[in-house]
């Protein structure tokens, strides 16, 4: 299996654990990631509110470079994924748009390849069977609220991925690792990450409602698939908890970190020591790190 890889700006910065864990688990699963050379920012969260053409052109350059290699693109960041899908579908929608985009980026681009988010890649390209085979330390006893947020599943005609109100792909991955996905109501609510810097006060209630609902439904932690959601839920949790006097303490994981843990990769290699909400006490209390290699039968 070989795919183009578009990490996006956050995976070089605030979301570096997502990059570390994605690379670690992909290697173990035999998924070769070809990083798009000299990729540029896709403009997500700003360009589409400024200039519709710019919002198509910035992702298009990256997609065009992957197309030259004849590869689909694995995209970890939900916001990048969404903008790439918008670009891909706009390019296919009319010759006029396609020609306009090619002229702007000064590269041929036909949208013959496609962008796929990382949950989709793991669940449907790699496959759950293969994931189960690699499990060394099952996540049994770990109750996980799988949080998809907005841009992975909405609008459905753009993302073309899972159910927009009750997606299950990440839940199924967590089950395959031996973990216990909880049933909860806020898996597709927006956490407001794109506005969290400019409008922090408006974003605090959104975060509180997500934490509170996960907590009330018995979750030990949240699993996410977006660096913007992660930093918003992880870095701001302390402040939100204080503002609302919440009694939750929910470590946030990239779902790829949980995959890595279950595959026996060390917490350090996965970047787990870089979180604001320290996940180590939870992992220790569940005995996940010290679990003897249980192999597949135990899952």
């Amino acid at each position, binding site marked *: 299996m070989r795919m183009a890889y578009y990490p996006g*700006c*956050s995976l*070089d*910065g*605030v*979301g*570096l654990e997502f990059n570390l864990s994605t690379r670690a688990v992909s290697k173990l699963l035999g998924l070769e990631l070809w990083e798009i050379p*000299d*990729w*540029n*920012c896709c*403009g997500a*969260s*700003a*360009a*589409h*509110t*400024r*200039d*519709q*053409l*710019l919002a198509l*052109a*910035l992702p298009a*350059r990256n997609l065009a470079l992957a197309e030259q290699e004849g590869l689909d693109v694995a995209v970890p960041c939900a916001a990048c994924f969404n903008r790439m899908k918008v670009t891909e579908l706009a390019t296919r929608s009319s010759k006029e748009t396609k020609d*306009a985009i090619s*002229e*702007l*980026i*000064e590269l041929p681009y036909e949208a013959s390849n496609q962008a796929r988010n990382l949950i989709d890649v793991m669940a449907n390209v790699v496959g759950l069977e293969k994931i189960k085979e690699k499990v060394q330390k099952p996540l049994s006893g770990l109750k996980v609220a799988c949080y998809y947020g*907005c*841009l992975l599943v*909405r*609008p*459905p005609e753009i993302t073309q991925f899972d159910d*927009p*109100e009750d997606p299950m792909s990440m839940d199924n991955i967590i089950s395959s690792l031996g973990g216990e996905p909880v049933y909860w109501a806020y898996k*597709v*609510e*927006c956490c*407001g990450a*794109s*506005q969290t*810097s*400019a*409008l*922090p*006060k*408006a974003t605090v*209630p*959104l975060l509180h409602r997500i934490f509170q609902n996960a907590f009330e439904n018995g979750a030990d932690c949240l699993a996410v698939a977006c660096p913007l959601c992660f930093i918003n839920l992880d*870095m701001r949790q302390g402040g939100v908890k204080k503002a609302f006097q919440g009694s939750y303490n929910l470590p946030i994981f990239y779902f790829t970190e949980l995959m890595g843990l279950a595959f026996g990769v060390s917490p350090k290699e996965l970047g787990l*020591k*870089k979180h*604001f909400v320290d996940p180590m006490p939870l992992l220790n209390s569940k005995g996940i790190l010290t679990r003897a290699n249980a192999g597949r039968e135990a899952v």
Partner: protein
Amino acid sequence: METVRLSSTLSSGKSFLEKVQTESQVNVRDCYQCGKCSAGCPFVEAMDYSSHKILRLLQLGQIETVLKSKSIWICSHCATCYTRCPKKVDIPRLMEFLRMEANRQGFIGEKTVNIFSNLFLTSVRLTGRVHEMGTMGFYNLLSGHLFQDVLSAPGLFFNGKITPIPHLIKNRKVIQKIFANTKQRQGES
């Protein structure tokens, strides 16, 4: 509350609604005011006009009220509304268009959102990528929120998540050309 004569704004707003439809492919007359969009909107409490009210104001030709609103700057384009709308009114797309139009006419309902977007795109244009520490630093300076997130900064810095040195892509000229090409094309249309 001031009295508004709808008979005049209804006709004067017509050309704007045509522009909305041409540029965003949204027909605001499709909305029948069920309110499902506002019911599911995560940011509704922070808005001055909830999304179905924005649509109603547009239908009634109250264009300036809409362009001066905070709502069009607060919307995060999460598409909960659009996904659930029984009439498939693409509200996020509409909000994008309204924000651009407000910007063109000099109405900035939420200055901080505008500052952040400007800095974000400046970073992309200059380096090819977003430089997070630079964007946040300039944001704090320009927004006057000098101490926003400063308590988190050491945690980010010492874990290697932010760095003062921006990553420069090699083909920066190509990115600058994309910005220039786009600007030129917008100027022609």
